[in-house]
């Protein structure tokens, strides 16, 4: 730094100080930049590694001759034997691996959950955004946050111990635990996501739209259903897609509340078993490197790809519709 001699009134030659000194600060800056860039890459790396390592353990189902003695891609999806067409019996003398009962179970439970959750949470979101008074909002929003914060194992526990009993005594189904009990539980996990994302969508509709509609004499409900809902549609659809993704992958609730019977049926009151529950229930006891082990990873890979595609599609869909909406307004 300059000496205080420069404080004299007349300007004078200042010795050029080098601007190029590189101290430890500059070095730290470079190290920090490297570390931070590296850390950011971890998220990408993690996704790639998940893909690679689940794929690696799933691949023998397609390629290994030893595995093919017990299971092949064909037997996973096609009828196996005339008497046991679609059977998931991995632990037996002659293990049978048909994914069809699991696929049916997953679809059944997911569809039931989504059918319960979407109407409830989307109309709940409309109410909060359009009709509710501020004090009602102050109750609903924290309630949703609390619901979202309940661990899924607790929801599963509650369905198993309480909801199943209620439904059983109300309807007298043959199986205490079935696709509906699991679906109800799953809906509890899906509601907060669908609600939050669609509520955001409703709230982001410009107030001017509502004012314009009201000015033309439309009622509250007409404004909400004909103006707000269509404008918020991309967000609501995204909410549904994300809720669907959540439902497909959720494990603990279906593991505890579905009855876990891998039977191919289309009745909602039969016990079912989903992909995720199958992995959770069986991976603990499986021999690493056995065909069963590889098949479970194959199921995992299937689940991963399914949710991955759902998510990608969801985000792409939102982006596209948003662009359209912006272009229109």
């Amino acid at each position: 730094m300059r000496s205080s001699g420069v404080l004299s009134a007349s300007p004078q030659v200042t010795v050029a100080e080098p601007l190029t000194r590189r101290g430890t600060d500059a070095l730290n800056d470079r190290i920090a930049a490297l570390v931070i860039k590296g850390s950011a890459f971890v998220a990408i790396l993690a996704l790639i590694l998940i893909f690679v390592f689940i794929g690696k353990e799933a691949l023998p189902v397609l390629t290994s001759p030893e595995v093919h003695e017990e299971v092949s891609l064909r037997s996973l999806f096609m009828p196996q034997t005339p008497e046991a067409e679609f059977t998931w019996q991995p632990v037996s003398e002659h293990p049978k691996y048909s994914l069809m009962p699991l696929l049916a179970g997953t679809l059944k439970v997911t569809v039931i959950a989504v059918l319960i959750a979407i109407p409830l949470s989307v109309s709940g979101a409309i109410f909060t955004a359009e009709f509710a008074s501020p004090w009602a909002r102050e109750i609903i929003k924290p309630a949703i946050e609390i619901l979202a914060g309940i661990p899924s194992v607790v929801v599963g526990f509650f369905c198993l111990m309480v909801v199943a009993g209620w439904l059983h005594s109300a309807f007298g189904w043959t199986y205490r635990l079935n696709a509906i009990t699991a679906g109800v539980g799953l809906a509890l996990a899906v509601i907060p996501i669908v609600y939050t994302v669609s509520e955001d969508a409703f709230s982001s509709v410009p107030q001017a739209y509502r004012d314009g509609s009201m000015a033309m004499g439309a009622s509250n409900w007409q404004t909400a259903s004909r103006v707000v809902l269509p404008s918020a549609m991309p967000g609501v659809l995204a909410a549904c897609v994300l809720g669907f993704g959540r439902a497909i992958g959720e494990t603990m609730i279906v593991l505890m509340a579905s009855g876990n019977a891998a039977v191919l049926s289309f009745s909602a009151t039969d016990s079912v078993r989903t992909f995720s529950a199958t992995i959770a229930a069986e991976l603990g006891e499986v021999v690493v490197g056995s065909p069963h082990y590889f098949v479970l990873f194959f199921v995992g890979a299937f689940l991963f790809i399914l949710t991955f595609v759902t998510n990608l599609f969801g985000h792409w869909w939102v982006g596209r519709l948003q662009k359209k909406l912006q272009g229109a307004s």
Partner: protein
Amino acid sequence: MFDRTRLAGIFFQSLTAVACITIVAMMVIILGNILIHGIQRLSVGFLTKAPMAGMTSGGIFPAIFGTFALVLLMTIAVIPLGVATAVYMHEYAPKRSRMVHLVRLAIQNLAGVPAIVFGLFGLGFFIEFIGRGMDKAFFGGRLVYGQPAIIWAALTMALLTLPTVVVATEEALRAIPQSYREVAYSLGATRWQMIRRVVLPQAVGGILTGGILAISRGSGEVAPVMFTGAAYFLPELPTRLHNQFMELGYHVYVMTTQSPDVEATKPILYSTVLVLLMLTFLLNFTAIMIRARIRRRLRYGR
């Protein structure tokens, strides 16, 4: 005609109110039920003793301890990683850069990967690949790290909670006025000095929020730790990174589904669930409070 549309409007409008009431009611019923049944057996002894007599008596101390140990390890891993990722996206990478787009996409998708898939990944990558590899390299093939262990469970959980931390930190970074950064630069700060002395101190609330939400999520999730380190029943506390451990959520699962005598286990089970719920709520509540403060600041420019 006019009256009919009006009535229909009122009808549908009330339907949406009913939907809201239903959701709130569900929440109240779950909490109320668990609180009523769970409070009966809750005591100091319950929190400080190990399970006894086939989990029909005693307490849940090992599960509480294990959960704390798990989330502590997880936090150590996920906070630096998550904060650095958010800082990279917000402070380092040029806007609209390809890399930011990719990282954001990865975070979004990571957030959507089912918990059970993380469990599979933990088993396939951390245990079978890294753990086995470490055993071969350092322990002469003896089984030390190539099996379920708390460190692998914690790392798996860290990946699962990474998006939570990143998103919360990013929100906090956005709340910091750009002018602070300019002032720091104008006073001769390098980028790292600017981040360390201006950005990070200002973002501490958001980082805390993210961390707490991650801990809350991590202490409740079961699927990722089922195969990567949680033990069915293990009175000994984990003292080493390669030990197994008991986890509250997993303990609930085990007691619910595999107890030899469900009726005898029930009171303990309810109390365990209550403890787990209180733990996650306490964490969530704290996070929500901090986040509300940050949002207020963002809105009113302090």
